[in-house]
Every structure is written in structure tokens, then in C-alpha cells.
């Protein structure tokens, strides 16, 4: 029997402006004994929300979470959790932090101390029992976070991006130490669920990777990683898995439900024009098709960071990413070579062809007699589909792109967008 199971799990948040946002939708997953599972997804896919629903911290709107076949109400009794920021209590020493969970369980002081010390030792913090979290480095703090979660001997260990706040070497070190405890069964944990946005991390650690889609978060695909531990990152099969998952993540979103109006197209990636132009030039300079994953490495950037840039370039048809490889399109090549004014022209053309929302702005402005419109108007339109903050972000990006392409201008003081050329020609 599965240790953890979710059935048709859907979480909808009510936002203050009376809109409702579906964060995750219809999630069915199960964690079996002995499994290390990763949930992978872009930011906004509701990974953390899903994890918190499994932990019992958030009540699902629809569907249910089961622990060993029993419905979870309140905090899930079988789990423990490691937080992204360790979430240690700064006023408690390392030992007191680790002991806290046992204290709550009512473990007698002597046994509690022994178990905590053993766990601190196991996780490699021997000698730091009486230190305060402030005195520790980030990596050591997260070790305390692991010790605190593991000392209560949970059947299920939930991890919310525990390595993402650490520098590369520290993270790698901690990953390997955790993996060692897990593979050698030195901890009684039966199954681990990891939330991450790093494909490589997921492939390196887990037996199964669940890829989430965003807006709303739905399971896109599950991939079993059948490479024995310890895995070699340079090996061909490892890279193949990474590439495959990458193209799954970058590929088209699963088909939208029928009836959902896609009036304004897919959301614009949060990327300014400068970044797009820079990236296209960079790709154009490459001699041949390049592996996306490798490019991130070469640029010394996290995939999660350049992903929106890539999305934007793909949206504007400057680059092409079929099959996990990246190459410039014909437009992209011209764009990269062009001078400033030509660049604006090309950008304008690509926007008009590919960004329905900006087309709509222009249409509205054309129809108005004074060719002006408060930004608020468009934001309200966007709010039918996005949260308030996302709507604002979308508008900002649209203004940035539109201004660059000289499609319209923006008046900061009156918070209005307007058609520049038309106004001028009329005045003349």
C-alpha cells in the first residue's frame, strides 16, 4: 500500500479582490515505500502548496490526502519537513532546536537528549550542539534543519527546496550526505518527497520525477530514473534524462480545458527587452545547436533563472528549442545582427505577430478618439485571468516591450498609455 496518496487534489486560493486562483489542480500521486520522489516545476506551479497540502498544513479545496490509507485531517502524523530557509528558532541552540520535536512528543528528557545527540552526530554537526543558529554557516544551519526533521523518525520526509539557498559546493556536499543516509538505510525514513526547480538535482537524487505544469499546477508527466546510485552527472544516460525532462518542461503546456478563453494568449514571461536582445545575440554567436542545459551551465546561471528569458525568445520566435537543443531562427539571426533602429522594427513585427495582448492594447488605443487609455483599464482586463500582482507584472512587461518597439508610449504621471505618432500627426 502506498504510504502517501493524494486523490484529485485541487487547491484554490481566494484572493482579496474576489478572484479565485487555482494553484494546483487534480493531482493524483502516491509515494511507495523505499521511494525517493522529486516534484519539479517552474515557479508558480504550486510545488510548495502541494507539499504543504500533503503535510496537512493547507486544507485541500477538493480531493484528499491519505496517509497509509487514512484520510489526513490536520497535520499529517507520518511526516516531517525540511524548509527552504531551515526555519530554525534563532533563540534555541542547535541541540534545543533538534530536541523540540521530541519535546512535543513527550519523550523523556534523557532519551530525548540521547536521540538528539545521535542525530546531530549522524548529520555531521558534532561539536556544535550548544551553538546558536546565528553562529553557523548556511549549510550547517540546513544540516540542523535535517537533524530536526529526522530525529522524530518520520516515515515520510518532505523537503521544500532545501538546497536552493546554499552555494554550489555546500549544496552538493549536503545532497551526498543525505543520499548516503538514505541509500544505506541509516535513517528509518520510508519515503522522501523533494520539491525542487533544479532538473539536475531531481535526476541526481530521485527514483521518480514528477513534472508539474504551471497556471494551474497539474501533473504533466512522471519519469522513472532507473540509473543505479551513485549517479554520474557526466554520463550519457544522466544527460539524456536531464534533456528529456527539460524538453518536457519547456514544451507546450498540456491542452487547456475546453471553454477556457485564451483571450490574451499565454502569460508574458517576466523578462525585459534588454535581456531578450542580449540572449538572442549570445545564442546567435554559437556555431551550432547547443544543449539548453549546458548553456545554463556555461552562463553560470540557474536554469530557473534563464528559463523565462528562453520562453520570451521562443514566444517572439527568435529562438527554437525543439528537443532540448537551442538554435536561432531566421528572425533571431537578423535581429542579432541588426542595429538599434532595425532591432526595434523587427521586435515590433514579432510582437504584432505573436503577442495578442499587445495587439489588443493597440486596437483599444486606435479606437479611442484621444488615443489614450489609463493602464488601470488593461490591468482590470488582465485581472479576469491573473492575480492582481500578476496582472500588474503582465502590464509592466507589455509596456516595456511596447515602448521599446515604439508601438505606444507611456505617461508615468497620469499612468496612461497612448499612441505617440497619431497624436503628433494630428497636432501637425
Amino acid at each position, binding site marked *: 500500500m502506498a504510504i502517501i496518496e493524494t486523490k484529485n487534489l485541487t487547491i484554490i486560493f481566494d484572493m482579496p479582490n474576489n478572484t479565485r486562483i487555482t494553484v494546483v489542480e487534480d493531482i493524483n500521486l502516491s509515494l511507495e515505500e523505499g521511494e525517493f520522489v522529486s516534484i519539479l516545476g517552474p515557479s508558480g506551479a504550486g510545488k510548495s502548496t502541494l507539499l*504543504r497540502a500533503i*503535510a496537512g*498544513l493547507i486544507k485541500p479545496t477538493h480531493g484528499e490526502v491519505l496517509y497509509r490509507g487514512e484520510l489526513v*485531517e*490536520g*497535520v499529517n*502524523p507520518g*511526516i*516531517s*519537513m525540511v*524548509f*527552504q*530557509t531551515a*526555519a530554525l*528558532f*534563532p*533563540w*534555541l541552540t542547535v541541540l534545543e532546536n533538534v530536541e*523540540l*520535536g521530541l*519535546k*512535543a*512528543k*513527550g519523550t523523556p*528528557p534523557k532519551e530525548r537528549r540521547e536521540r538528539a545527540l545521535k542525530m546531530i552526530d549522524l548529520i555531521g554537526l558534532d561539536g556544535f550542539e550548544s551553538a*546558536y*543558529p*546565528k553562529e553557523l554557516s548556511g549549510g550547517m*544551519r540546513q544540516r540542523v534543519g535535517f537533524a*530536526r526533521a529526522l530525529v*522524530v523518525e518520520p516515515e515520510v520526509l518532505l523537503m521544500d527546496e532545501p538546497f536552493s539557498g546554499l552555494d554550489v559546493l555546500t549544496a552538493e556536499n549536503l545532497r551526498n550526505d543525505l543520499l548516503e543516509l538514505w541509500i544505506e538505510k541509516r535513517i528509518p525514513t520510508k519515503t522522501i518527497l523533494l520539491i525542487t526547480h533544479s532538473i539536475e538535482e531531481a535526476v541526481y537524487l530521485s527514483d521518480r520525477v514528477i513534472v508539474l505544469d504551471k497556471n494551474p499546477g497539474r501533473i504533466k508527466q512522471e519519469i522513472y530514473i532507473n540509473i543505479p546510485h551513485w549517479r554520474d552527472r557526466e554520463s550519457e544516460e544522466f544527460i539524456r534524462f536531464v534533456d528529456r525532462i527539460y524538453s518536457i518542461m519547456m514544451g507546450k503546456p498540456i491542452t487547456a480545458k475546453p471553454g477556457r478563453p485564451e483571450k490574451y494568449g499565454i502569460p508574458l514571461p517576466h523578462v525585459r527587452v534588454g535581456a531578450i536582445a542580449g540572449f538572442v545575440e549570445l545564442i546567435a554567436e554559437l556555431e551550432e545547436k547547443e544543449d539548453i542545459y549546458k548553456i545554463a551551465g556555461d552562463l553560470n546561471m540557474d536554469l530557473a533563472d534563464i528559463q523565462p528569458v528562453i520562453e520570451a525568445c521562443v514566444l517572439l520566435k527568435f529562438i527554437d528549442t525543439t528537443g532540448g537543443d537551442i538554435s536561432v531562427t531566421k528572425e533571431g539571426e537578423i535581429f542579432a545582427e541588426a542595429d538599434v533602429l532595425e532591432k526595434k522594427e523587427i521586435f515590433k513585427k514579432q510582437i504584432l505577430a505573436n503577442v495578442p495582448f499587445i495587439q489588443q492594447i493597440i486596437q483599444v488605443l486606435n479606437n479611442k478618439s484621444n488615443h489614450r487609455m489609463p493602464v488601470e483599464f488593461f490591468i482590470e482586463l488582465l485581472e479576469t485571468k491573473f492575480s492582481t500582482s500578476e496582472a500588474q507584472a503582465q502590464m509592466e512587461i507589455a509596456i516595456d516591450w511596447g515602448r521599446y518597439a515604439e508601438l505606444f508610449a507611456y505617461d508615468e504621471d497620469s499612468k496612461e498609455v497612448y499612441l505617440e505618432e497619431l497624436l503628433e500627426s494630428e497636432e501637425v
Partner: protein
Amino acid sequence: MVYRIVPPKRIKISIIDIGIILFLSAFIYGIISTAKDWGEIPVYALNISLSPVNLPYYAWLSVLRQFLAYLLSLGFSITYGYVASHNKRLEPIMISLLDILQSVPVLSFMPGVILGLMALFPYGRVGIELGSIVLIFTGQVWNMAFSVYSSMSSLPREFREASEIFNLTPLQRFLYVELPYSTIGLVWNSMMSVAGGWFFLMACEMFTLGERDFRLPGLGSYLQLAAIEGDTEAVLMGLATMIAIIVIIDQLVWRPLIAWSQKFKVELATEEIIPTSIVLTVIERSTLILKIGGVINTLMEKISAGFSRTTPRKSRGKSPFIFILRIIIIGILALILGYASIRLFLLISGIPVNKWGEIMINDLFTLFRVSIAVVLSILWTLPLGVFIGTNPRLSSVMQPLVQILASIPATAVFPIILMWLLSMRGGLSIASILLMLLGTQWYLLFNIIAGAMSIPADLKEAADVFQLKGVERWRKLIIPAVLPYLVTGGITATGGAWNASIVSEYVHFRGQILTVRGLGAMISSSADKGDISLLAGSTIVMIITVTLINRFFWRRLYWLAEEHYSL
């Protein structure tokens, strides 16, 4: 360092506020009406000796009163803050209540509270002692309670989640998570509150109602008597003792507490200046203290272990019994509130219309004095505070000094000011404004220094690069950075100034009554004459005025500053 409470972002008046005003009316009625039988209560006045030999004893008594009142405030504010942050239904009511209670002129209730308690405890000094403690308590508790509430309700999400995941019992959560998280704010506000507490202590150790003197042996009564008798030597001795006590408390209590509370800081980034205290270092090295600490720890654990949950919490079903009980309690409360509000209404409806006009005009007079005091304070503290705050070396010396100056109660110095100013024309009016000034300026200076210190170095450098000078520099850099802090100081300062008007516009001095026009004078004189309805009416007008000024002036200014200039 400074701990700034963000005021609630509400500037409208809601139904809850009206409910609270009703509640408050009932409360006012209750207190003021206990003072009806003033004539029958025996006068209690101890002989105060001006011999300096008695000073240590008097000082000790004053400190003791202050300490007891503080303990009371501490207990109350933690309970209030805890309940307000945990009970979603009571939260809006309790917070609005705090908001309005902060604007209540405590000194208005002095006769009612003290006489009421004297009637309850007719023998010996108990009643009047309790009365003074209750008054200090009401003067200092509100901002402490607000600080506990705001800490507990802003507990970082991950702390909340961690305590849920590890299944901490409510008591464990309180002891190991919520209380530690509230400590820094609580220590900071305690310090501010106690400074304010001295103000009330000095006022209620010695006061006159009609023909009768009420005196408690203490530093405040010593100072007042010394001033009345014109004994300069005793005045100076008393003042020196006062300052010595404040410095000693600062060094022995607040500095160590502030240094200790740094342990509860959540930000893991290293701070530029970490508060230190030699006393704390000594305490931390003492084995005795360590032992005591150990005992407290085990005790805490034993207590919380007793409440440990062995089975996971189950959701409680709603029993109809509890529901009915709740309805009954609410019903009874509503009845009491309704009755008392009606009585209060009847009481103040006895005030003739022309009296109301007088109250309003007096209100304007006091408003005028308060405004002058606040404007004068701002005029001198703003440049000086900015100057100190932008010089790191100077501010590390000056900040503790200002903190001490702010603690010196204006009410203690007031008789001395009177002694010097009375011979002048309009002396009392000037003295009154001076008293308000004394009460207000230090808060402002203190907050402005903190605000100026908060200007990031890169902004200052940018201003240098762009050669922002003079007026432009003030408009573009300094004012925006300092404004939120100035408002925080201003709210405390104006509240204090209104309170000060009660003791400074109407004074018994050397056997005669000195008075100027003003709402404070009206409150004092009606208390003096036992005119309860006028006392109630003018008190209510003062509460409303202070609340309105806070909501429509200071708070609006605060959010304006936050939204436009937030760094």
C-alpha cells in the same frame, strides 16, 4: 536601534469603533460615578519630610510602585496580545479598543480611580497605593499590548509551519516560539512605557481635590512639596535622586535587557552595531544566575510537558451548550453596556448647551497649546536629531543619553518650572506649554535620530554625487527617510501633551488655585468641584479629539510617508 510599531492602516471609523465608544462610555461612567461620594472618604495625607535623609526611602517607594505597575502591565499585555492574535473573532474588536484606549487621558480618571479604590479599601494606605499603581498601569500598558499583538500575529510563516509540523502544544508554542519572537518588541516598548509611567507616578503621588490633599510618600510628592515650599536645596537633591535612579535603572535593567534580547533577533545578517552591556556579561558569567536559569528551564519543561498532547488533536464539534452560554454572556454584556451608556448619556445630557460650547472652545485652546508644543519640539529636534543621526559616532554617544532624558518625568519638574515662572505675566500658560514640550520633545528627538540613522549609506553617497544641498537635500533625502519615524514619535508626543494639559492648566500651588482656559483645566476643575457630569463630558471630548487627530492627521501622514517614500 529602534523598534517601530506599524500603526493599523485604518483611517475610517467603523461600527466596531462605535461599539467600543459605547463600551468606553460604560467604563467612564463606572469609574467617574464611584467618585460620587467624595465627601465621605477620609482625607489621606502623610506628612512628607523634606529632609534629604528620607530621599532613599521615598525613591525606593516610587520605584516599587513603578515596578508593581510594570509587572501588572507585562502580564496584561502578554495575555491581551496573545488572545487578540489567536482569536480571529475578537481580534478586530480588541485592536480597535486598544487604539482608542491609547487616546484616553488617564489623568482624567485619577480622582475616580483613587477615590473608588479608597472606598473599597478604607483602612490605611492600601486604596490610594493601589490607585496610583492602576493609574501607572493604564498609562503604560497599551503600547506594550500592541507590540505583543503585532509580533505574535506577524510570526513568520515557516516558524508557524514548523511548530505545526512538530505538533507543539499551544503552551509549548507560546513558550518556545511566540513569546521569544515577541521579546525584542516587548523589551523596547517596556522601556518606553516605563519612561511614560514615571510621568503618571509623579502626578498621582500628590494631588489636591477641593480642600483636601492626597499624599503618598515618594519621590514625586517630595519634589512637589519642595517646589511649593520654595526649598531650592531640596528641589536639587530630589532632582539629583530622580536622575540617579533613572540612570541606574537604565544601566542595570534596560541596557542588559536590550543586549540580551538580541538573541531573539530573527534576521541572521550581522548587525552593524550590536548593543552590549557590561552588566549582562557579568550576569551571564555568574554561576548562580546560570543555576537559576537552569531551574527555570526545567520548570518550563515540566509545566509544558504536563500539557503534552499524546494523541493528535481532533477537531472539536460545536456543542449547543457552549453556544447558548456564549449567547447568554454576550447578552449580559450588552445589557450592562447599554445600561451604563444610557446612564452616562443621562449624566452628560445634564450639561447645558452653553457649557458644551464652552467645552468646545476650551478644547480649541488646549489644541492650540498642544500644537505649539509639538511644533516647537519638531522645530528644534528635527535638525538636531538629523545631525546626530547622520554622525554615527555622535549617535552612539547621544542615543543612550537622550533615552535617559526622555525618562525624566515632566511632572516631576513641573512644580519647579512653576516656581520660576509664576511671577511672569501669562506664566501658567507658558509653564503649561513648557510642560507639554518637556513631555513631547524627547520622544521626537529619539525617533528622529533613529530615522536619520536608518538612511542607507548609498543614498547619502548618491545625494553627495548629485550635489544635493540645502533645501533640496532635505526635501529629497532627509524628510522622506525621517517622516515615518517622526510620525511614530509624534503620536506618542501628542497623546502625552493632551494628558499633560490636565495637570498643567489647573494647579494648586501654595494654597491657591492657578488656572488658564483649556480642556485640561476644565477636567481638573470639575474633578475638583465634584461636578461629575462636566468631568465626563469634557473627558469624552478629549478622547474624541485625540482619536480624531491620530486617525486623520498622524496616521494619514504615516501611510503617506510609507507609501511614497518607503525605502
